């Protein structure tokens, strides 16, 4: 399973949402005609991979999983500062798993983006399922996270 996973076509380390399994012979599964990348599904996968690596510690499988996960940068799913000026993240559904994965990876700044762990630190918003909009912080300042409820 891991060997096939490593051979799948990805976009910036993230899996596409659907791959054909049939009629491929020995070739790796091919991305379906409807090509898109889902934060929800990739969050699901990565949480499961992290659990698997933990269950098979110090094995070749755990090392391969770590290498696979290291290729991903969850900034891909968030607006970049120079263009949008804020993160706008829908936390109403279970794609919040992706947010937890982002925090767990504790990925640092990339280019002009703030660390994801800073942009997603509001556990209160996660608990309440509120949409989250974060203003760009000045350098060295703590980030401010205004919370809007669903009613607003």
């Amino acid at each position: 399973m891991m060997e096939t996973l490593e051979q799948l076509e990805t976009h910036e380390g993230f899996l596409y949402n659907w791959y054909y399994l049939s009629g491929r012979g020995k070739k790796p599964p091919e991305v379906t005609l409807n090509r898109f990348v889902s934060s929800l599904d990739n969050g699901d996968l990565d949480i499961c991979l992290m659990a698997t690596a933990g269950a098979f510690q110090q094995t070749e499988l755990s090392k391969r999983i770590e290498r696979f996960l290291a290729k991903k940068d969850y900034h891909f799913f968030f607006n970049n500062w120079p263009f949008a000026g804020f993160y706008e993240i829908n936390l109403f559904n279970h794609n919040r798993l992706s947010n937890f994965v982002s925090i767990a990876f504790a990925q640092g700044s990339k280019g002009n983006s703030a660390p994801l762990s800073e942009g997603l630190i509001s556990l209160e918003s996660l608990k309440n399922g509120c949409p989250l909009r974060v203003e760009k912080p000045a350098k060295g300042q703590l980030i401010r996270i205004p919370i809007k409820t669903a009613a607003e």
Partner: protein
Amino acid sequence: MKGIPQKSLNQNELTYLKRLEKATFSGFEKLFDRTTGLPVDIASVSGGDVLILQDDTNYSKTSPTNIGLGFLYLVLARDRGYLSQKKLTSTRFV
């Protein structure tokens, strides 16, 4: 667990749960595509058997969530004794 009434299961209940668990793990194992080792998204069930529609591209496909659950199956099946070390290390599963 505090606040929740405790009840011990009798032998019949334990036997039933064990049978259910065994059938669940057995069924899950059949969801893995034979060539790629990846779990399929949809399978038909007929007469208690799981049928993978190998030649139908509308059904024989997988997604990151399916694959993630496939890995969790490995962990749980090993922990519950449904997957031998030999089988676990075979190319198909790992």
